[in-house]
């Protein structure tokens, strides 16, 4: 049905464009003839020399005329016209076997064109755009849009109402629904500049860069894994943060381009410019045994050519890998010359190991870098000032001993309220079942149940805390007869009862009693279940590690700690089956001393020789003989924390001798017979002059963003238009070439492209110019007249109805519920995910550990992007795998979407938390609460009929929850956010249903 409408629509617009008598009207090559020839003739009579038949090409006038196929002004005498009109199936063109047929109208067009002189035009997109005569600013857009409408005798619809505009703007510019209060104030304001002020405030919001980044990251195929084979993690998330920053700082697009393509080649590049050059490292990579390095180098090269040509040039140069392009004048040679620009990038065809993916940079974000520098300066000072000022005299030693003794006595064992072996995690298929055995001294002994010895464990302990101060935790592990070694993959401590979600504690000060390379204590804090700290038991009676906090934590009444020990050893190492947790408020939370030192401290003045020696040794080790040792140690700890927070990011690094690049006949990497090529841009758009030396990626970037490049600006504004208006001005976003769509309103596209270049590639200026236009502000409801004449809205007489992108839909639910965590940047985060979703990944097997803290509620943009298994809730809403450039996400409407919105715990938890908000903030009466909930969800007042539906739902659900004991409690246990006290469970559950209904209402998914 929709398909039918679309087809009728296309011809409706065309019919209006072309007057009744074709012969009488001016036929234009680009608009009328090229699409016919490209679709039907160029495959055999076009640019591809190898596929060319009868040595005839029709894509160039001189060729067509020289063969006499076209006789200008003599249609009847032109063989082109004769052959397409041929009745004999053996002679007709295109040949019957191709299944291609020209319509009578197309034949008439060709004849008329020949009759009028068969004038060719260069393909529109390869001619530098010129600015049409139109007023400056947004009025220019309206002038050009309205003129097209007026030519067809059509009227645009009225502007949308202000609440719709507030929601549209917020979703388009920030990817989040509007603050209902802001939307309401805007709706009531009659200030003439209220709209502009709203636009500016949204553009200034840091959320704006996050919104724009989603689009860009799709294009450059940013992801967190390698893509091929084992689909292993890579660290390149600082690149994502660079993109967010770039949009937030409104970095000019030419600068952004230069930094991404060639940040590493700039003079003294800044760390962020190097991070930007990570663009070159976003292609898929393999480490598969048996992969052939040359083959994969060829794959990586072609990956890059495809990406740059689609992202910046809107061209399918990638098609020329195996043959000259069939429709556009790209030659296979152009493909390999483009690939040669990237032949300087240091890389391997087949990477080795699982964590090493070539050139990278450890990067401290600027603020942290400044802090680290400052600390280093201060440390140097202190070290000099206090050097040798603290001899190990008796007094000083005794003073430290006193402190250590006090520190020792301030360690107290944490008595668990609960301890349990948690085998719920689906990826732990050989997980230990444990039972808690109470032991004196708060030692936790988990005895095994079941026959076979487990190989994995997740052990959790919940400990009530007393009011006071916490500076460090300690873990003591004791041997058991069950295992001859121990292994801890992750140590996680979460504070419950302070925030809406558990607060994950971080520990910059790590003090193990022993550790060896490859099994360091820091490995238990890296979020990676495949690394950890452990060893054989040997003679040890216990092993210990201290986890010191950055600064003392003030514990409030009622707060609890949940501590998890996760063990996922690679080999058959043992599990932590007997342990104790300790806490201290000591300002000097050193490792609780053992052995001689412990004895020395407890012995007081009456020490043995060995004890005194141990004390002196500890003094030297702790103070280093420096009178400022306390301050030094404090600063060192801070510095370590800063450095541990450095981001590793893949970057491009140019090698001295770029790889040799040859034209590969038919794309066959084993065929080395092709000619060698140097970096060069496609011939018909170039060539680019070299100043004697080899052209570089920097030269390429300059060419791409040169004001003379006919493609780049058009490609960018065309996609920006799609983001804000739903359809590109040329609707094929990845191909402005011969097989793309000649834009129905080319003057508008060109006007925008020129404006973009002349503004200094000012992205925000273009967004502002677009959203300030009346065309943007129009209602998305079509008039009957427009629906009939322009059903697919190519003339933009109205706005579009758009479904939210996957990330923004999730963000919306979190935002409305109040759960959204607006922290920016950093490592990717892991929302809840169905069990076993990664089951078919391997090398290594993957454990998905959802974030059980505030990271659970981060914006969707920050979600861990596993190329082979994109998060299923995002994928259901058309999030791309980012294996290849995605210029436009589909906007599907499927039952899997319904299932995700109904049942994904992220949405259920958001509904539950939204329900408690409704009850807290929505007034006392049910109807008032429903009206509040509707306003929060859609930024508009509720309609009485909606209130009635939701009221009936509320009552029905309440009845059902009341009649099924335990059901409400089970529902309310979804997720990690605690429920507020004082609300009957059935009441909160029933309101949760109301909230779920709102999140599932079609309107919630839409921007109108």
């Amino acid at each position, binding site marked *: *049905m*929709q398909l039918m409408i679309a087809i009728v629509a296309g011809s409706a617009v065309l019919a209006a464009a072309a007057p009744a008598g074709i012969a009488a009207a001016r036929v234009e090559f680009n608009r009328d003839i090229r699409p016919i020839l490209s679709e039907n003739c160029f495959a055999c009579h076009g640019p591809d020399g190898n596929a060319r038949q009868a040595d005839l090409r029709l894509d160039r006038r001189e060729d067509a005329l020289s063969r006499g196929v076209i006789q200008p002004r003599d249609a009847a005498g032109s063989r082109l016209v004769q052959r397409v009109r041929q009745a004999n199936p053996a002679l007709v063109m295109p040949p019957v076997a191709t*299944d291609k047929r020209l319509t009578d109208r197309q034949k008439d067009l060709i004849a008329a064109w020949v009759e009028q002189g068969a004038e060719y035009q260069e393909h529109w997109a390869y001619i530098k755009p010129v600015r049409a005569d139109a007023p400056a600013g947004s009025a220019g857009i309206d002038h050009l849009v309205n003129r097209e409408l007026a030519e067809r005798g059509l009227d645009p619809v009225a502007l949308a109402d202000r609440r719709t505009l507030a929601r549209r703007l917020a979703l388009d510019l920030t990817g989040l629904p509007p603050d209902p209060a802001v939307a309401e104030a805007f709706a009531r304001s009659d200030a003439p500049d209220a709209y502009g002020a709203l636009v500016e405030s949204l553009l200034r919001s840091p959320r704006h860069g996050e919104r724009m980044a989603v689009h860009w990251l799709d294009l450059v195929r940013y992801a967190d894994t390698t893509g*091929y084979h084992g*689909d292993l993690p890579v660290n390149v998330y600082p690149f994502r943060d660079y993109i967010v920053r770039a949009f937030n700082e409104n970095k000019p697009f030419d600068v952004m381009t230069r930094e991404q393509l060639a940040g590493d080649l700039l003079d003294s590049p800044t760390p962020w410019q190097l991070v930007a050059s990570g663009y070159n490292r976003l292609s898929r990579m*393999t480490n*598969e*045994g*048996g*992969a*052939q390095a040359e083959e994969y180098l060829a794959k990586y090269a072609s990956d890059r050519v495809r990406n740059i040509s689609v992202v910046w040039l809107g061209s*399918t140069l990638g098609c020329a890998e195996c043959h000259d392009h069939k429709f556009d004048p790209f030659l296979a040679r152009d493909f390999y010359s483009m690939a040669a620009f990237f032949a300087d990038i240091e890389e391997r065809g087949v990477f080795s190991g699982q964590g090493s993916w070539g050139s990278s940079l450890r990067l401290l974000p600027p603020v942290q870098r400044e802090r680290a520098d400052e600390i280093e300066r201060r440390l140097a000072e202190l070290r000099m000032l206090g050097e040798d000022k603290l001899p190990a005299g008796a007094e000083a030693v005794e003073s430290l001993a006193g402190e250590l003794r006090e520190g020792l006595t301030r360690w107290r064992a944490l008595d668990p309220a609960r301890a349990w072996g948690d085998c719920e995690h689906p990826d732990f298929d050989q997980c230990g079942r444990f039972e808690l055995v109470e032991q004196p001294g708060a030692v936790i002994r988990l005895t095994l149940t079941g026959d076979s010895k487990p190989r994995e464990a997740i052990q959790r302990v919940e400990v009530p805390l007393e009011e006071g101060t916490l500076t460090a935790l300690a873990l003591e592990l004791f041997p058991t007869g069950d295992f001859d070694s121990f292994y801890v993959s992750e140590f996680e401590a979460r504070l419950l009862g302070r925030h809406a979600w558990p607060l994950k504690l971080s520990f910059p000060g790590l003090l193990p009693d022993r550790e060896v390379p490859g099994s360091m204590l820091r490995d238990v804090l890296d979020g990676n279940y495949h690394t950890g700290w452990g060893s054989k038991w040997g003679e040890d009676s216990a092993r210990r590690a201290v986890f010191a906090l950055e600064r003392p934590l003030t514990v409030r009444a009622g707060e609890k700690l949940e501590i998890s020990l996760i063990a996922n050893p690679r080999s058959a190492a043992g599990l932590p089956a007997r342990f104790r947790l300790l806490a201290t408020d000591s300002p000097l939370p050193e490792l609780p001393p053992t052995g001689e030192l412990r004895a020395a401290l407890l012995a007081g003045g009456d020490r043995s020789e060995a004890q005194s020696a141990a004390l002196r040794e500890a003094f030297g080790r702790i103070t280093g003989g420096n009178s400022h040792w306390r301050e030094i140690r404090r600063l060192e700890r801070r510095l370590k924390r800063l450095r541990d927070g450095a981001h590793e990011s893949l970057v491009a690094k140019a090698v001295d001798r770029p790889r040799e690049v040859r034209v590969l006949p038919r794309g066959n990497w084993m065929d080395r017979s092709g000619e060698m090529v140097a970096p060069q841009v496609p011939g018909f758009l170039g060539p680019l002059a070299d100043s004697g030396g080899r052209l570089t990626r920097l030269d390429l970037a300059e060419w791409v963003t040169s004001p003379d490049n006919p493609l780049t600006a058009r490609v960018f504004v065309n996609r920006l238009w799609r983001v804000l208006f739903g359809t590109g001005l040329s609707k*094929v976003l*990845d191909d402005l070439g011969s097989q793309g769509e000649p834009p129905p309103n080319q003057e508008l596209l060109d006007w925008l492209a020129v404006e973009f270049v002349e503004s200094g590639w000012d992205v925000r200026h273009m967004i502002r110019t677009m959203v300030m236009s009346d065309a943007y502000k129009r209602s998305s409801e*079509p008039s009957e007249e427009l629906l009939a004449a322009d059903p697919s809205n190519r003339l933009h007489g109205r706005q579009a*109805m758009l*479904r939210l992108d996957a990330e923004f839909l999730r963000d919306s639910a979190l935002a409305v519920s109040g759960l959204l965590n607006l922290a920016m940047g950093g490592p990717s985060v892991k929302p809840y995910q*169905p069990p*076993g*979703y990664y*089951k078919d990944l*391997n090398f290594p097997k993957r454990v998905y550990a959802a974030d059980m803290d505030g990271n659970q509620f981060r914006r969707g943009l920050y979600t861990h992007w596993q*190329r*082979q*298994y994109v998060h299923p*809730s995002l994928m*259901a809403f058309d999030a791309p795998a980012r*294996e290849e450039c995605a210029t436009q996400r*589909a906007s599907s*409407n*499927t*039952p899997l979407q*319904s*299932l*995700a919105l*109904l*049942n994904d715990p992220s949405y*259920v938890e958001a509904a539950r938390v939204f329900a408690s908000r409704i009850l807290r903030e929505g007034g006392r009466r049910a109807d008032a609460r429903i009206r509040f909930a509707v306003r929060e969800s859609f930024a508009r007042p509720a*309609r009485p009929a*909606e209130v009635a*539906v*939701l009221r*009936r739902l509320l009552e029905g*659900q309440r009845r*059902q*929850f009341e009649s*099924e004991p335990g*059901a409400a*409690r089970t*529902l309310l*246990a*979804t997720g990690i956010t605690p429920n507020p006290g004082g609300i009957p469970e059935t009441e909160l559950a029933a309101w949760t*249903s109301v909230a779920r*209904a709102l999140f599932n*209402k*079609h*309107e919630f*998914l*839409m921007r*109108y």
Partner: protein
Amino acid sequence: MGLGSVALASLLEPRLLATQPGVPGFPDAAAKVKRVIFLCMAGGPAHLELFDHKPDLAKRDGQPMPASFTEGQQIAQLQGKELRILGPQHPFKRYGSSGQHMTSLLPGIGSIADDICIVRSLQTEQINHDTAHTFMNTGFRLPGRPSMGSWLLYGIGSESEDLPGFVVLTSEGGSQSQPIAARQWHSGFLPSIYQGVKFHSTGDPVNYVRNPGGVSRAMQGELIDAVGKLNGLQQRWTSDPEIATRVAQYELAFRMQMSVPELVDFSDEPQHIMEMYGTQGGDGTFNANCLLARRMAERGVRFIHLYHRGWDHHNEIRAGLPKSCSYVDQGTAALVRDLKQRGMFDDTLIVWGGEFGRTPMSQGQDPSLLGRDHHIKGFSMWLAGGGIKGGHSHGATDELGYNAVEDVVQVHDLHATILHLFGIDHRKLTYRSQGRDFRLTDVHGKVVHKILA
């Protein structure tokens, strides 16, 4: 529970009930089959032990592989290694009245030898698992093209009103389990409704198919009903055509929440059927998946894709291959027999095979642990069911089992043949993307008429 408004929406627009509509005009010829069950032996089964008997290999066991075969050819893990011939590590025998010649390790499949057509002359382009699967499924080495199940749904639509038309199941066992990416059942540039849906053997069978904890079916129904009413109200003041579709999708989702658990619940299967497949229940084994496949076939699922991850025998062909065979033999045979006894064999196509084969050359040093490397120039698969010539063998490799030399079948030809059996001309089923009309067979593909009955 009343789904009043939902039902109303469906009445108004009956087409919305067809969840995965096909293209008008397809099938364009008489269809032989209605569904395909693709049993993918992921990892690359050793054709020289299973289906392609080469006495010459045995005679020349341990001798250097002649360079005339291997020179200039792609090679995977044996790069830079000495190449030596490895004779067949397991005996062959003849099965059935047709006397099909195949391994003694698959007696179950041997017992249906008269029903299957062995193709011994397959070739593919990609030599690593990931890209080879992508090529086998989409006809192209790069991501972004639709897999064959998606093409089929796009072409002729789904027959099921409450299950997805393209379903994927995985199992493992027998050798190292190579990963399988979700890309393998992606709809690529086709609309997402044609995407394959992965069923899980543990946890929820389909992502998010289970109600939130504590929510009964009646509660969920009441909620969906309310959502439908709210959407109905919205239709009074907006003309958004997607609202009606959305309402229909909620109706379908709600049906799936019933039909999926019912599908995977084997309690209505009699004991002798469970025994025939060799499964106790939905335990995620290949045998259980075969039974599940039959249940899906009965319910109108169009493309049922089973992956058994366990055929990557770089070593231990001798001890390992029997293990892999034991994981799949009984289930495969039971599936064919069961379809026959239900009269469904003649309108089902069954395909059995991997993403490539394995080299005539040995891999590894320890003589008792020898294996074979990935191989793309000649390997075997078999097909059975509607329109397929049973008890027949097609094509041949050279005397060392290296190159397919007789009646060579490319992956594109396999695709063309599969579409042909559904009454679809592979050259005509196209979709426009990136300014070009794409098809499953790219610009290649010939229907392999000689294997058709």
